[in-house]
């Protein structure tokens, strides 16, 4: 199986974020890491290759810093990487990001494309599904298990409220992967060494420009959420706090 894994570099979870001068994006001088669900998508691709042979290719779009994500993926065992390198890729909406990705891989016959189920920065949860539609492929989202079958694959979708569902689907297909589908591996020392010699193809903005258009949605304003709630502090010794809380439960919240 030939699998493409779409990965994204996002600000670290606990990184303090500052707004840029125009208040439309963050200042880029923060620490970055791989988007968590994308790491699980890569792991799943590596496991599928171990079972069924084939190739794992990783792709990202973003400025030079984003190459780190690809280097880590190569060190963990991906065979080669594609980097759509330009800082303008950061500002693309999900529709255009998917179009750029589709343009960059148009000559490559993949069996499967994995993405994380959503990104920790924009959180659109859309790019993978859009990519599937652009390619004319079927897709399934929030995947917790993948098995090869005679006619394609059987995947396990996570539904809400503890429900799951198996879905049979043909290949090629796009799957968005849920965190926790597997246990992540660490890169080995030898893997890190080998990664340096693995192929990394760079794609410029110019090469995919004809495929993308104006963004269909625009961030007008980015800001720190305002505290809208008035918090009442309940103080006193425990027995008194308990009495006060019961009074709130009964008279203000009317749940008792």
């Amino acid at each position, binding site marked *: 199986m030939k699998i493409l894994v779409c990965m994204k570099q996002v600000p670290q979870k606990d990184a303090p*974020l500052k707004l840029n001068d125009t208040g439309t994006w*963050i200042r880029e001088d923060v620490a970055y890491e791989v988007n968590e669900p994308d790491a699980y998508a890569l792991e799943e691709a590596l496991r599928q290759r171990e079972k069924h042979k084939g190739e794992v290719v990783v792709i990202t779009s973003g400025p030079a810093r984003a190459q780190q994500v690809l280097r880590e993926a190569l060190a963990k065992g991906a065979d080669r990487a594609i980097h759509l390198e330009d800082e303008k890729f950061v500002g693309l*909406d*999900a*529709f255009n990001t998917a179009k750029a990705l589709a343009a960059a891989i148009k000559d490559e016959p993949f069996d499967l494309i994995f993405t994380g189920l959503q990104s*920790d920065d*924009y*959180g*659109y949860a*859309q*790019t993978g*599904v*859009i990519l599937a*539609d652009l390619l004319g492929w*079927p*897709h*399934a*989202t*929030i995947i917790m298990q993948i098995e090869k079958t005679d006619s394609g694959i059987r995947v396990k979708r*996570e*539904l*809400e*409220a*503890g*429900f*799951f*569902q*198996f*879905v*049979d*689907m043909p290949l090629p297909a796009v799957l968005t992967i849920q*965190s926790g589908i597997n246990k992540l591996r660490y890169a080995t020392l030898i893997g890190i060494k080998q990664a340096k010699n693995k192929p990394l193809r760079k794609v410029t903005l110019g090469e995919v420009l004809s495929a993308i258009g*104006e*963004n*269909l*949605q*625009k*961030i*007008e304003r*980015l*800001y*720190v*959420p305002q505290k809208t*709630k008035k*918090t*009442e502090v*309940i*103080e006193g010794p*425990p*027995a008194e*706090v*308990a*009495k006060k*809380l*019961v009074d*709130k439960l009964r008279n*203000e*919240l009317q*749940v*008792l």
Partner: protein
Amino acid sequence: MSDTILVVVEQREGKLNRVSWETIAAGQAVAGATGWTVEAAVAGSGISSAANEIAAKKVARVYAIEAPRLEPYTPDAFASALKQFLTTKQPKLVLMPHTYQVRDFIPKLATAMGRAVISDCIGFKYESGKPHFTRQMFQGKLVADVSFSSDPPWFATFQNGAFRGDQAEAGTAAAPVETVRVEIADGVVRNKPKEVFKEVKQAVDLTQAEIIVSVGRGIKEQKNIEMAKQLADVLGGELAASRPICDSGWLPMDRQVGSSGQTVAPKLYFALGISGAIQHIVGMKGSRAIIAVNKDSEAPIFEIADYAVVGNLFDIVPPLIEEVKKTKAGG
């Protein structure tokens, strides 16, 4: 003809998903700001009772989009049916709840129509004749006002709890229900879904709970969960937890609230020893009321709490359980 907001509600096996009322309320709020007309649609097979239920709300019209191939759900069938319908109707704005099912097909539907979706919104503003949708970014650390730069129809989804379902206004008379039959051609549906199942026995649907008592790292040890369970029991609520508690195996995964667990909006959310990492807050900030007990006065959970108790939960919860029992006994 006035501009239309089409609310596409969600049903499973003919039964409306409760979150649908929130999206109706959202549509009504947008209509209030813009003067546009709200209509509703439900797609599936054998959905007339769901359509009639929606028609009791203050909407101009309800469309029951019917095709045998819409059951069971597949993204191919839903995108195909709704594209046909929307291409004919041309609403200005299409609203849906941000459920797992909608996430599965709405990007495909919008892409097939050359449009974008502003997903997982928490609010709406109408500024100088332009709709702005508020959505969280960077896991809720920041929020953005986002506008459409394409032609309509515009697509937006609302986060569970962004609007209150009980505020969906009822109509003075039942809205007319129109059945729209769509054709889904052979070969359109490529996925073959199997039966929906639950992995964990007694799996709990926290989204339906009115009262939730939730524990975080502050509970310290697995044996202390029992105390929180007692509080949940006397309050008639469900027990839930933040991710670290479920990752440790102290409670099953289906009791997890947060971005990787369930998103809840109960009447009361009782947070015990939960610091309020954003991954947790996105899953419960829509709660009607939040009581937080934490010994760290700087804990971010207090930012969104209605009632804050700064103190040791092991001191506070036992007398609280007794006090609730007394009150319920008529004391």
